[in-house]
């Protein structure tokens, strides 16, 4: 395995909460507390269609409302989802602190209009230059995995072994690793920091750091 040149950060679950959690939070606000979106039988297919741009955000939300909250508006659910999509500043702080030798990409797994409407979007853009924002909904992929992995290596012009995928979804990281792209499951900023230190990508322990002691 060669030296890592390029890091891909999966937005949902790492920089913002993952889509199922956004949905669960938004549905709870609308009176459906403790509703697991995975109970929605078509959830997996609908969310893959949403991520890949085959279904727009409003249609996705309307389908969920029709199932969970008959009579409610998909637009209302959509707005609530966007309000839940709070950016994790500590993750972005770590990404900004990476040495410049690492190319940094973000994989956006939200529909493009949702990404544009994120109130914290600027913070994300500050971390990743425009050409390193990969909107899955505009990538024209038939499937997320493994198709995305070839696209990532192509766009970065790097062999897969020089890339590193960082994502909160364990399945995706396992699929990537099995396909030949190094990957790490990351659930929060403290664990991201630990992983980057282990891989010698950032400097070791700083005793004055306000959250390095949190693990």
């Amino acid at each position: 395995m060669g030296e890592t040149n390029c890091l891909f950060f999966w937005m949902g679950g790492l920089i913002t909460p993952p889509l199922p959690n956004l949905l669960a939070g938004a549905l709870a606000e609308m009176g459906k507390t403790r509703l697991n979106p995975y109970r929605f039988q078509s959830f997996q297919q609908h969310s893959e269609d949403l991520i890949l741009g085959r279904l727009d955000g409003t249609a996705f939300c309307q389908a969920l409302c029709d199932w969970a909250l008959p009579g409610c508006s998909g637009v209302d659910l959509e707005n609530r989802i966007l309000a839940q999509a709070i950016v994790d500043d500590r993750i972005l702080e770590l990404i900004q602190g990476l040495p410049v030798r690492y190319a940094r990409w973000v994989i956006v797994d939200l529909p493009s209009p949702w990404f544009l409407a994120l109130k914290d979007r600027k913070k994300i853009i500050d971390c990743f230059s425009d050409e390193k924002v990969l909107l899955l909904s505009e990538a024209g992929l038939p499937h997320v995995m493994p198709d995305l992995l070839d696209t990532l290596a192509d766009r970065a012009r790097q062999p897969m072994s020089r890339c590193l995928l960082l994502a909160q979804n364990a399945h995706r990281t396992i699929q990537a690793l099995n396909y030949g792209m190094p990957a790490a499951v990351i659930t929060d900023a403290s664990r991201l920091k630990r992983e980057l230190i282990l891989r010698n990508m950032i400097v070791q322990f700083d005793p004055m750091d306000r959250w390095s002691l949190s693990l």
Partner: protein
Amino acid sequence: MTVISQQIEVLSEGRFNVINITDQVKQFVNASRIQNGQALVYFKHTTGAVIIGEHETGIMADMIDLFERITPTDYPYKHHLRAVDYNGHAHLRAAVMPTSVVVPVVQGILMLGTYQEILLIDDQVEQEPRQVILQVMGE
């Protein structure tokens, strides 16, 4: 001695989904205010487990490889003869993994090592809500 219990529901995609619930257990222990005792984490299903391990992608991939060798997903399990569900592999894997873990609580802190995480493994073939019981006892 005080005993406090809580049931939590975990969002899971199933299919050997490994979910890190360490932070939820830490929050539960903190909220209990118990200083010295034990915390129990118990998985309430027959197609998964709770383990203590490192939440690392390579380890998870290796575990899946291991279980695919000894309990392949695609195999004519006798459990399938009942024609109710087709998750024989998940039941067998669950039978050789722990359903619960116990972690000491000392001075209000869950005594986990640097790389130890409390991991829920859900191997159900369908996406179902997964229930986990958290219980802390002590004083």
